[in-house]
Each structure stands twice: as structure tokens, then as C-alpha cells.
């Protein structure tokens, strides 16, 4: 359960606007192939702004709201610690480096697109990013240990998305009420 959320939030370090910017800038700058694993490492493990449960709690809506998940996550974290300004600052921090890098890559594109060394480098970065995604998902799953309903719901959601290829929104709309009903009836 996520009851620790509200009580602990007060005693935890509260980031200032400049810190919100730099953390998301950092995540955007090195997030080749995906920003989320790096954002979680910085926010949960290094800065300790949120614990694992509170992070998962904000990641849920970030996934089902439209838009890029990490942008929504930046808004979630920014809003929580700095209101509207916090959200704006976090999103600007997140997107400024990638915007410049992607435009620079596009400008170079004519020269690099059939260079095997560049392709090898980018493929290696993408593969490493994939590994970080797997590790991050596994870390998020740790609190499920010993929770029968939680494990069942996570496994069923995994199967619906990865094996049955159901649409994301339908999966969330079906699985969340089932999860709520089962947890109410049988506990976590």
C-alpha cells in the first residue's frame, strides 16, 4: 500500500526550482534511448525526493495520460514540489538538451546515416538503455514481494500488453478496477 506517501513527504528533502531543472536536465542529457530509468535513479535513489512507492504512484497516471511518459512524470514531480512553476521548470529542463541534440543529429544526418561506426555506437547506446529499462522495471517490482494479489495483477497486466498486445488504455481500464476489487476483498 502507499500509505507512507503523505506522512513521509514532509520530512523528505524538498527540491528547489533550480534543482528540479538540473535533475531533469541531467536525465534528458544522458537519456539516450529513454529517460525514465535515469530519472528514477536520480529522484528515488540519489536525491531521495520520493520513495519507491511514491514514484510508482506518480508513474501510473504518467503512463495513461496522453503525451510522453517522462514529460508527464516531470510534470508530476514538478507540480508536487514546486506547483505550476515547478512543472514548467522540470519540463524545460527535461526537453532542452534533447531538442538541441536531436536537431544536431538531424543536421548531421546526411553524413552519418550510412556510417557503420555511428550506427554501432547508437545501437550500443540503445541496447544499454534497454537494459536500464529492464533493471528499473525489476526494481519497481520489488515491493510486490509477498503480495499475492499484486503479483497476480502485475503478471496479468504484463501478459495483456506483451503477449496479447492489447491497447494500453483498454488494459489500464480493465486491470485497475479488477486490482482494486481484489485488493479490497483479499488485501494486497
Amino acid at each position, binding site marked *: 500500500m502507499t500509505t507512507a506517501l503523505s506522512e513521509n513527504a514532509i520530512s523528505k528533502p524538498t527540491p528547489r526550482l533550480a534543482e528540479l531543472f538540473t535533475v531533469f536536465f541531467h536525465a534528458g542529457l544522458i537519456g539516450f534511448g529513454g529517460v525514465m530509468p*535515469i530519472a528514477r535513479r536520480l529522484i528515488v535513489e540519489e536525491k531521495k525526493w520520493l520513495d519507491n512507492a511514491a514514484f510508482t504512484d506518480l508513474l501510473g497516471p504518467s503512463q495513461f495520460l496522453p503525451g510522453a511518459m517522462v514529460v508527464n512524470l516531470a510534470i508530476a514531480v514538478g507540480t508536487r514540489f514546486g506547483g505550476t512553476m515547478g512543472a514548467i521548470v522540470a519540463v524545460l529542463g527535461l526537453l532542452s538538451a534533447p531538442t538541441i541534440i536531436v536537431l544536431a543529429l538531424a543536421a548531421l544526418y546526411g553524413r552519418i546515416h550510412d556510417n557503420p561506426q555511428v550506427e554501432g555506437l547508437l545501437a550500443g547506446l*540503445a541496447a544499454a538503455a534497454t537494459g536500464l529499462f529492464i533493471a528499473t522495471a525489476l526494481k519497481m517490482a520489488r515491493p510486490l514481494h509477498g503480495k499475492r494479489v499484486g503479483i497476480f495483477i502485475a503478471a496479468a497486466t504484463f501478459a495483456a500488453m506483451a503477449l496479447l498486445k492489447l491497447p494500453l488504455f483498454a488494459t489500464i481500464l480493465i486491470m485497475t478496477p479488477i486490482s482494486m476489487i481484489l485488493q479490497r476483498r483479499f488485501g494486497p
Partner: protein
Amino acid sequence: MMSDLLALVLVFGQLSVLAIGGPNPILPEMRRQAIDVHHWLTAPDFAALFGLAQAAPGPNMMVVTLIGWQAAGLPGALIATLAIFGPSSLLAGVVFTTWNRLQDQPWSKLLRAGLAPVTIGLSLAGAGTLAWTMGQNWLSVLIIAGSAIALVRTRLPPFLIMAAGGLIGLAGSFW
């Protein structure tokens, strides 16, 4: 030029709130608008820029920045980026302000507890699908497994793990 900027705002502003789970659901309509309707770029360009946006840091949605750049240069890139992230961000701002305010309501706690394992399942599925797509040869499988283990087992900063993966990929291209 002005008409292209306006078209970028209209096309991507609308697609913004339909992009649930990232760019995949809006990809067909994005392609149709950019290639067939507005002739901002060709189909091979579109595929190449999508690959570039995936490889570059930041959300994959940044393919939109590149389409804007093709359509109207730097102003186009900035306007398109603003259009694709603006409306969805406003919605997220409203939702999260409410979400934070309601965190002590009993039904809200039940909703959060219900959503948590679904979120974890989605993250695992996303990681699994990504690994399935990316693990095309033994070298990438090796990098994927190695970096996953490195992040779980060690305190190495993700930056170093990424750099190692890139260097191994680079070395592999010489061989």
C-alpha cells in the same frame, strides 16, 4: 512559412492529447499528415527521422521536433515541439494537481493501491517489448543483459553504463 507554422500547431496540437502511451497510437495519422497532406517530408525520411528520435536522448515523441524542422526550419522545430507537448502537459498539470490534493481520500488510496501493480506490469511489459525489438544480435543481447545487471547489482551511475554500451557497440562495428 506562416501557413506551415500554423499547420504544425493544428496538426500536432490535436495529436498531442491522443498520444496515449507515447507516439505509437498517433504514428499513422502523423505519417499521413506530414507525408500525404502537407508534403513536409518523404516516407523514407520519416522512417529515418523516427529512428533518429529513438536513438537520441529524450522522449521518442521528439520525432515531431524533426518533422517541424523539415517543414519550417528552426522555428518549425520549436513550434512543433511546443504543439505536441503543450496540450498534453496542460492536461497532466491539472490531473497531477488534483492527484496530489486528493492523496488522503480513502477512495483515492484504494485507486492508487489498485493502480500500482498495473503500473509495474506495464513497465515490465514495456521493458520486455523493447528488449524483444532491440535484441537483434548476440552483441545487443549481451549489452542489454550486462547493463540491466549493472544497474540492479552495482551503484554505477547510469551515464557510465550507457557509455560502456555505446563503446561496446562502436567496437563491434569494427569487427
